[in-house]
């Protein structure tokens, strides 16, 4: 597929990453470039009393992309994101950040990388209970040894960014869950990281607040254009915010693709089950359906066909379809291609969802 996202330079690359828990995980990976088929090795690991939490994860994350890793609890998604930041030491594989192998970094280098290149947001917020909002946000700057005025002014900048002005002196336990996560987000942004990890950042919040935080997250990303790895167990959340989704089950990545690809062409029955309840019209956009064999050819397009943006949701086109429009001219965006879209195709997708 000619998705513009994947033509951007690679920011973070994950190659054959394994994480195995058990008595002697190192034993199985001693020889570099093992030849065993991953499934066979995983089965052998289980048979010999090990738990393969991440099995042979391979993917590239491109600059400016929102890459969502999604799966149920226990699927290995939290372990995988911790392998990417080396909070958990992978048993095998390569994690390449900006062209350098992260797993080869010495402890001191790793600390430098974390201080300047990475930011992370946690499900339980991870705020320090003894520091107020301002000091929590300035904490990563403080441990770098930046002068007090510099870190305070930077902290105030990000506080404004997440809309927490006026709560600078409050302590974490005085804030609501949503406000606490705003602090967590502001803290992770304080060092202007190149890559931003979010581990189920909104899962601990009420549904309404969660929705609101997702909107704000998207607004922030429009402004900041970070490279993002976002973990969630909520398929709706994944579909709303992802450029691409990696779906995990039992430590394996089953499918990687845009939300539309996952919804329209699920790799197997498990993925299909997972996406069954998703409302297509609120996830799939006009540009996702053009260039499809079922779509119409541009030359057949009448001159008065309405023009729609490639990023427009199908739900937004329903009134026009209902009014009798048969064809749409789709204007391409930086994320989705342009072309021609037929009403039949729209109705088809909305009616049947995945086939």
């Amino acid at each position, binding site marked *: 597929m000619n998705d513009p996202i994947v033509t951007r330079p690679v920011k973070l690359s994950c190659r054959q990453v394994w994480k195995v828990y058990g008595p002697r995980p190192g034993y199985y990976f001693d020889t570099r470039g093992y030849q065993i088929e991953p499934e066979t090795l995983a089965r052998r690991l289980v048979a010999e009393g090990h738990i393969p939490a991440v099995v042979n994860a391979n993917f590239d994350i491109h600059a400016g992309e929102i890459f969502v890793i999604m799966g149920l609890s226990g699927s290995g998604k939290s372990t995988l994101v911790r392998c990417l930041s080396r909070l958990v030491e992978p048993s095998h594989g390569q994690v390449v950040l900006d062209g350098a192998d992260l797993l080869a970094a010495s402890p001191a280098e790793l600390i430098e990388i*974390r201080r300047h290149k990475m*930011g992370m947001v946690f499900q*339980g917020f991870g705020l320090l209970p003894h*520091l107020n909002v301002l000091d929590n946000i300035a904490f990563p700057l403080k441990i770098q040894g930046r002068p007090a005025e510099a870190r305070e002014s930077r902290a105030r900048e990000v506080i404004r960014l997440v809309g927490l002005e006026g709560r600078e002196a409050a302590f974490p336990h005085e804030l609501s869950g949503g406000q606490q996560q705003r602090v*967590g987000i502001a803290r992770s942004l304080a*060092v202007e990281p190149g890559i931003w990890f979010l581990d189920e950042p909104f899962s601990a919040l009420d549904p309404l607040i969660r929705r609101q935080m997702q909107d704000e997250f998207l607004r922030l990303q429009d402004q900041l254009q970070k490279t993002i790895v976002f973990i969630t167990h909520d398929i709706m959340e994944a579909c709303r915010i992802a450029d691409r989704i990696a779906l995990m089950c039992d430590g394996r990545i089953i499918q990687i693709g845009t939300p539309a690809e996952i919804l329209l062409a699920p790799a197997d029955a498990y993925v299909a089950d997972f996406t069954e309840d998703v409302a297509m019209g609120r996830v799939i956009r006009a540009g996702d359906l053009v260039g499809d064999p079922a779509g119409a050819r541009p030359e057949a397009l009448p001159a008065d066909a309405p023009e729609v943006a490639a990023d427009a949701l199908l739900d937004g086109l329903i009134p026009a379809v209902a009014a009798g429009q048969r064809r749409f001219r789709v204007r391409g965006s930086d994320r989705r291609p342009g072309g021609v879209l037929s009403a039949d195709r729209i109705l088809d997708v909305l009616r049947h969802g995945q086939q």
Partner: protein
Amino acid sequence: MSGPGGAIRARTVPPRGAAAAHLAGARWLWLVLACAALVLLRPALPWLSAFPPDWQLPVAAWLNGLTMPVFSWLRPFGRAAALLLDYPLGGIRAGLQSIAWPSLVLIVAALALRASGWRLAAFAVASLTYVVLCGYWRQAMNTLAIVAISVPLSVAVGFALGAMAHRWRRLVRPLEAVLDLMQTLPAFAYLIPLLILFGFGPSAGLVASLLFSAPPMVRNTMLGLRLVPADILESGVMAGCTPRQTFWLVEVPSAMPRLLLGINQTCMAALSMVIIVAIIGGFDDMGWEVLSAMRRAELGRSLLSGSVIVVIAILLDRITLGLATIGRRRAPRLGRRGLARAVAAALVLAVALRILGPAADLLPDASGRNILEGLDRALLAFVGATDAQFNLLRGAITYGVMLPLRIGIEGAATPAVWGVTLTPAGLALYAGAVGMIALLLWRHSRAGAAAALLAGLLLYTGLPGFPWIGFVLIVAMLAHAGAGPRLALVAAAVVAGILVSGLWLPFMQSVYLCAIAVAGCLAIGGGLGVWAAQSDRVSQVLRPVCDALQTMPQFVFLIPALMLFRVGEFTALIAIMLYAIVPPIRYVEQGLRGVPADKIEAARQMGTTPAQLLWQVRVPLAWPAILLGMNQTIMAALSMLVIAALVGTRDLGQQVYVALGKADPGLGLLAGLAIAAVAMVSDRILRGFADRRRGGATA
């Protein structure tokens, strides 16, 4: 375990299946039969009831032979350390003495104001003034001086050990074993080696209190660091903290509430121990004051000095606890700057007083004390007037409960004790009654029936007269049922070790004293706990009483018991019960109140009567908590044994005390280790039962 079914299921279906329960019941019946046979065989085989002296080993002497060379090698170091410790001790002591008391009251009141509020500040002023009026200011300051040295040392050592165990996980298990031992080994047992090492003087007491008060800090440090949420830890690492930054800037501040709680517990343990080790004397402090008053049977003076210790303990507890929780409340009444100002003002006042009248320490003459002693005399007169009633109580319990357990019904039913002799008909009546009870229990639980039969046997022979093989069997089977075969082996080994080292009779005396005390505490305290769980008002009244009882140093419990009941075993029993009654009250109330509301609503909806609700829903669900309360009661009773030995018992505690008098470290250590081993084994057994019950209830 959710939904209304859980509450009922937990009671009616045995967790391990009916067949297994049946088997377990049969095992207990075999035990009863074996014990009965042993009891019947006693006349023929005398070695069954009394362990033959030929089989005993001179373990105490071996211990002496083993430890003495080590001690004498270590002694120069110990003496040097004692000399070193003497300097700061002397300094603080002189400092506290030289500050005029109004200044110190001002400082403490300011601290209390910051820690809690005006009420505590007023209490501080009143209680310290009381100390001055009683004429115990100097002694109180000497006690505080040792506490002031030992607390920072304990906190530093405890924090370092806890942090090390947190970093190197394999240290945790050995460290916890040592902590268990340090906290269950009676202080008197290691006082003798300390005296040998450090010589007579406050340093030995200081080290003893260090050994006793560091463990709570270690435990709280380990717990606090372990409970730092993973999210917080990871956020620190992701921010790019070096390991040192992670520890000092993330882990320690996050664990701070728990660490401060540890400091509070360390303070209380240090105070309690400083009072106890006053037994070695020579420091003119509060503990010595109480002890010497008790020894000379000056009950008024001991009551007065005991009350001084209590107010100091309560004050120390409330202030440190308040300072520990200061971050979790709204802004304190007195800011940091206000506190500094108050302290500065107090110091200026002290200096001014010193310049104005260098000789005057402003302590009142004996007049204040005379008034209080008059009050005290009135109290004594009351005690004298009610002597008859208390004697009646004492006699009833001594002859009705204590003697039968000690010498058995076969021993008590003589003209000299009960005024009757045991006829065959009486014996048959007794056996019949026990059998009836067992039969009634049989329908509910076979183990219960077996327990009733065993209790009947024990009551017949008395604990010391019970065949020792039977006792070893009972202990091993209990351990097996509670925590499995490994603990059964350990428990049997502990009892066998006590047998072999010749401490059997004192041991059985301890078991008997503890058993009565624990049973009494469970009956009274459990009843109070049930009552408090039903009524908020009772709970409100009991809470400060329990708080006060738990804050008091163990020593103090001897005073009222001694005053009302004179020297003797019954007095020891009362003192033990006073100390051990708090856990059953607390745990029963907490357990009953902690039963989830949905279970109670479900049972109500089914139409239970209040009694059914209590006995069929709340008590079974609260059972793990109640078992833990029982566990705490036993621990408290055992730790009080040695203190209670001061008023006359014949148990292991007395052995420790005797060894202290004879400066026999081997015997003291042996008896102390026996108490500690008994405490640890019974702790594991009861925890095992509680865990199993909890596991069964959620299955």
